[in-house]
C-alpha cells in the first residue's frame, strides 16, 4: 500500500517499456509480493523435487536387506539433506510463498509492509539453500573432495563437533540454515506487520480470513522459535571455528543442551510447518461446502492455544535421554493437551462440511485427504506423546511414518489443495480437473502405501536412519511395500507438473472467481494487477463477497 511516510521530493519514475530484459529485471529486482510469492513457491517446488529424488534413492536402498545400492556415507548425507531441505528449503519457503501471495490480497492492501525486506528474505533463503547444496562440491574446502552434511537434520552434538565431523560439511549445514533462517525471520516480521497495520477498512481482526489468522500466528511462532535455532547454531559455529566448548563433552559440556535448544525451536517448527496447511484447508473446505467455517472463534482460539502450548512441549523429543520421571510426565502432559485444540480444529472442519453441499472438486479432494491423514497423524502423535510408549517408538521407523503423515499426508496434501484452489488466481486458468483427480488418487494411494508400513516396521524394532539392515528381522516386507509406493507418488507428482504446464499453455481463462468464493482475493482480476485493487475495498463481515452476492441475506446482519 502506497502510503507515503515522507514528502516526495523526487520525480516519480515511469515504468520502462516491455522487453525480455525488462522481464528479467522485473523478476530479479521485483519487490512485488505476488512475484516474490510465486518465486518462493517455484523454488521450493524445485527443492521438493530434489529432496524427493533423494528419498527415492533411500527407498531403493532400503527395499531389500543388505543392499549395496549406495554407500553408508552417501545414504547418511541423503537423509540429512532430505530432511534439512524438506524442512528449511521446502516447508518454510512454501509457506512464505503462500502467505506473501495471499495475505495482502486477502486483507485488501497493495503490498507487504516492507517490500524490499521481503525481496531480501526471498533471496537470502535462495542463496542459503544454494550454499547448502554447494557443500556437495565444496564440503571439504575448495581444494578437497566435496561432501554434504551427514549429521541428520537435527544435528545432535557432539556428533557435529570438530572431533567427530571433520571437514566443512557440518559448517555448510550451519551456515546454509542460518541464512535461510534470516530469510524466514524477515518474511515472518513482514507478515506480522502487514496483518497488524495494513488491513483494509472494516477488516477487524474478528473478520480477518482464517488463512491470514493462521499465517499471522505462524509468523509469530517463527519469530519466537527461530532465533533460538540461530542462537544454538552460532554456538556450534563458535565451537567449530573459535574452539568454544558449548557442546564439548570432554570439557564438561552437555550433549543434551543442544537437544533442549534445538527442540525448543524444533517442536514449534512442526506447527510452523503445519499451520499453512490448516490455513489452506480452512479456506477451501467452507467454499466447497458452501458454508461458513464452523465455530470460527474456536478455530482461532485453537491456533492461538497451539501457538502457546507448543512452546512448552519440546522435550517430548527427548523422553529417552534420561530425564526425571517428573519431567517426562510433565512434557507428556503438555504434549497430550495440545492434542485437544488440534482435535477441535479437525472437528470444526467436519462440522463445516455437515449440512453443506459438498462439491468434490480437486482442491476439496486434497483437503479431504488432508482430513483423514491428519487424523491418523494426530493419533500417532498422541501415541508418541505418551512418554512410556515413546521409549519404544522414539527414533524408530514409527516416528518416520508419523512425521511423514504430518508433513506429506497433511501439509503437502493441504498445499496441493491450495495450489489447485489458487492457481486460477495466479494464472487466470483452472488446473485440469481430470488430471487433478488422477493426481489426487495416485498420490493418496502412493503416499499411504509408502508410509503406513513404516509404522509397522517401527513396531518391529526398526530404528530410523539406518542405511541397511540384516535379513530376518521382520522388516523386509514392510520396507519392500514402502518402496513400491514411491513410483506411484512419482507418477502422481509428474502428473501435477504436467497439469500445470498443460493448463498454462492450453486451457482457457476462467474469469476472476471460478469457485464462487468469499474472500477478497477473488474480487480482483486473475492474475491481479501489480497494485491488487484499483480502490481499496471495504468490508463489513468475514465474507465480504458473500455480502455482495447475497444482499438479501448478508453476513454482516448476523456477525458480531
Amino acid at each position, binding site marked *: 500500500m502506497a502510503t507515503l511516510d515522507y514528502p516526495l521530493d523526487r520525480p516519480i519514475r515511469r515504468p520502462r517499456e516491455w522487453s525480455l530484459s525488462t522481464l528479467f529485471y522485473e523478476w530479479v529486482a521485483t519487490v512485488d509480493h505476488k512475484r516474490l510469492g510465486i518465486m518462493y513457491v517455484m523454488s521450493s517446488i524445485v527443492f521438493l523435487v530434489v529432496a524427493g529424488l533423494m528419498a527415492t534413492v533411500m527407498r531403493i536402498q532400503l527395499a531389500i536387506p543388505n543392499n549395496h545400492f549406495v554407500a553408508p556415507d552417501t545414504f547418511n548425507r541423503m537423509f540429512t539433506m532430505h530432511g534439512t531441505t524438506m524442512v528449511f528449503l521446502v516447508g518454510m519457503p512454501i509457506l512464505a510463498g503462500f502467505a506473501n501471495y495471499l495475505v495482502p490480497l486477502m486483507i485488501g492492501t497493495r503490498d507487504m509492509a516492507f517490500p524490499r525486506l521481503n525481496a531480501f528474505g526471498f533471496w537470502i533463503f535462495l542463496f542459503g539453500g544454494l550454499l547448502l547444496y554447494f557443500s556437495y562440491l565444496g564440503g571439504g574446502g575448495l581444494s578437497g573432495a566435496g561432501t554434504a552434511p551427514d549429521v541428520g537434520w537435527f544435528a545432535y552434538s557432539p556428533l557435529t563437533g570438530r572431533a567427530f565431523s571433520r571437514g566443512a560439511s557440518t559448517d555448510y549445514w550451519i551456515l546454509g540454515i542460518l541464512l535461510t533462517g534470516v530469510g524466514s525471520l524477515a518474511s515472518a516480521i513482514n507478515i506480522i506487520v502487514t496483518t497488524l497495520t495494513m488491513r483494509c477498512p472494516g477488516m477487524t481482526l474478528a473478520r480477518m480470513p482464517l488463512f491470514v489468522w493462521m499465517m499471522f500466528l505462524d509468523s509469530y511462532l517463527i519469530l519466537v522459535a527461530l532465533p533460538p535455532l540461530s542462537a544454538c547454531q552460532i554456538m556450534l559455529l563458535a565451537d567449530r571455528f573459535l574452539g568454544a566448548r558449548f557442546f564439548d563433552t570432554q570439557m564438561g559440556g552437555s550433549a543434551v543442551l543442544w537437544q533442549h535448544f534445538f527442540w525448543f525451536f524444533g517442536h514449534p517448527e512442526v506447527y510452523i510447518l503445519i499451520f499453512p496447511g490448516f490455513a489452506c484447508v480452512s479456506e477451501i473446505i467452507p467454499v466447497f461446502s458452501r458454508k461458513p467455517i464452523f465455530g470460527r472463534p474456536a478455530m482461532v482460539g485453537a491456533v492461538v492455544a497451539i501457538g502457546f502450548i507448543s512452546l512448552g512441549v519440546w522435550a517430548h523429543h527427548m523422553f529417552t535421554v534420561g530425564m526425571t520421571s517428573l519431567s517426562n510426565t510433565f512434557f507428556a502432559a503438555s504434549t497430550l493437551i495440545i492434542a485437544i485444540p488440534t482435535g477441535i480444529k479437525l472437528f470444526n472442519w467436519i462440522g463445516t462440511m455437515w449440512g453443506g453441499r459438498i462439491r468434490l472438486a480437486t482442491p476439496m479432494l486434497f483437503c479431504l485427504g488432508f482430513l483423514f491423514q491428519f487424523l491418523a497423524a494426530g493419533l500417532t502423535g498422541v501415541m508418541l506423546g505418551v512418554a512410556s510408549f515413546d521409549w519404544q517408538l522414539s527414533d524408530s521407523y514409527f516416528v518416520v511414518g508419523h512425521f511423514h503423515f504430518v508433513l506429506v499426508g497433511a501439509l503437502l496434501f493441504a498445499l496441493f489443495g491450495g495450489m489447485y484452489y489458487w492457481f486460477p488466481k495466479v494464472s487466470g486458468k483452472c488446473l485440469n480437473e481430470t488430471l487433478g483427480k488422477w493426481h489426487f488418487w495416485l498420490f493418496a494411494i502412493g503416499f499411504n502405501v509408502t508410509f503406513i508400513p513404516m509404522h509397522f516396521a517401527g513396531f518391529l524394532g526398526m530404528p530410523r536412519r539406518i542405511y541397511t539392515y540384516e535379513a530376518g528381522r521382520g522388516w523386509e516386507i514392510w520396507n519392500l511395500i514402502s518402496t513400491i509406493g514411491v513410483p506411484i507418488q512419482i507418477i502422481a507428482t509428474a502428473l501435477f507438473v504436467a497439469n500445470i504446464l498443460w493448463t498454462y499453455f492450453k486451457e482457457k481463462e476462467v474469469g476472476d472467481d471460478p469457485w464462487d468464493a468469499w474472500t477478497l482475493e477473488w474480487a480482483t482480476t486473475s492474475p491481479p494487477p*501489480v497494485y491488487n485493487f484499483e480502490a481499496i475495498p471495504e468490508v463489513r463481515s468475514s465474507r465480504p463477497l458473500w455480502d455482495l452476492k447475497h444482499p438479501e441475506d448478508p453476513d454482516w446482519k448476523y456477525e458480531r
Partner: protein
Amino acid sequence: MSLDAEPSKPEQHGAGAHPDEGVEMPASSFWPMVMAFGVTLMLGGLVTHYAVSIAGFLIAFRAAYGWWRQVIPHEEHEFVPHRHPYERADPVRVSIRSVANLKAGESRHRVRIPEEIHPYSAGVKGGLAGGLAMAILACLYGQIAHGSIWYPINLLAAGVMPELSRASDVALNQFNAKALMAATVGHGCISILVGMLYAVTLPMFPKRAPLWAGILAPVFWSGLVAASLELINPLLNQRINWPWFVVCQLGFGLVGGFVIARTHHIETMQNWPFAYRAGVESMGLPPPIKPNDGQPPPHGDR
C-alpha cells in the same frame, strides 16, 4: 473496482496521489538481492577462503549503500497506471442461488443449535454434587467392606502412583496424604468435566434426559471402565467390587443429573453481537437480533 454498489472514495483510504489513473507502488530494486548475495558470500568464506568473505563484504557494503539511498530520505516509488477499464475485474454479481434456511424459522436461520442450554455453572455444580455423592458411596463401601474410608481413595490414586501397587492391604487401609491429593484432584477434575458434558449434551437429547444422565450413561460408562481398567489402573482392577462400582456410578449420574436438570434452561447469546455479550455497546454495529422480545436478555450464566 468497487465492492459496493456505491461509488468508492479511494482518496479516503490512501490510494495514492492519482486515484483515477494509477497507483504509486514501491520501486523495484536489485539491492535486496545483491545484499543477500553479499551476506551469503561473507558466510561462505568461512568454509571456502577468506577472500570470498572479503568480496562478500564489499558486495554487501555496496548493496547496503544502494538500499540506503533508496529509502532515505524517502522510499522510492514508481507510478503504475491503472489497467484499462475493460481489463479490470468485473463487479461482483448478485448470486442466483437462494439460501436455504434452517427450519428454526426465517429470521433465526443462522443460530447455533441447540438454542437453549443449561447454564455452564450447572454443569460444574452437577459434576461436583455427583462427584461428592460418588465419593461418599465409595467411602461407605470402604468402611463397610474393609473398615477404612482410605481404601477406595488409595485404590483410585494407584492409577497414577506406581508405589501403591506394591503396597500391602494394611498400607492400603491407611491414610496417605499424597494418595488423597492425587485421588481428589483426579476425581474432582473428571467429575467436573463429566458434569459439564451432561450440561451441554442433555438438551440435545429429546426427552427423558434425566433417565439418560442418571442410569444409562453410568451403565455405559461402567462397561467402558470394565473393559479398560486393567490398563488404566491395574491395582483397582484386581481389587474392584463391581456391584459397588456400578452403584457409585449411578450415584453420580442420578445426583449430577438431578442437579443439572433442576436448573432452568437459558437462552444462548450466540446470535447477539459481541458488544452486547461483552456488556459494552459500541457504535456502528447492527442492533442485536431479538429472538423473543425487544430487550436483549440479561446476562446469562456462562
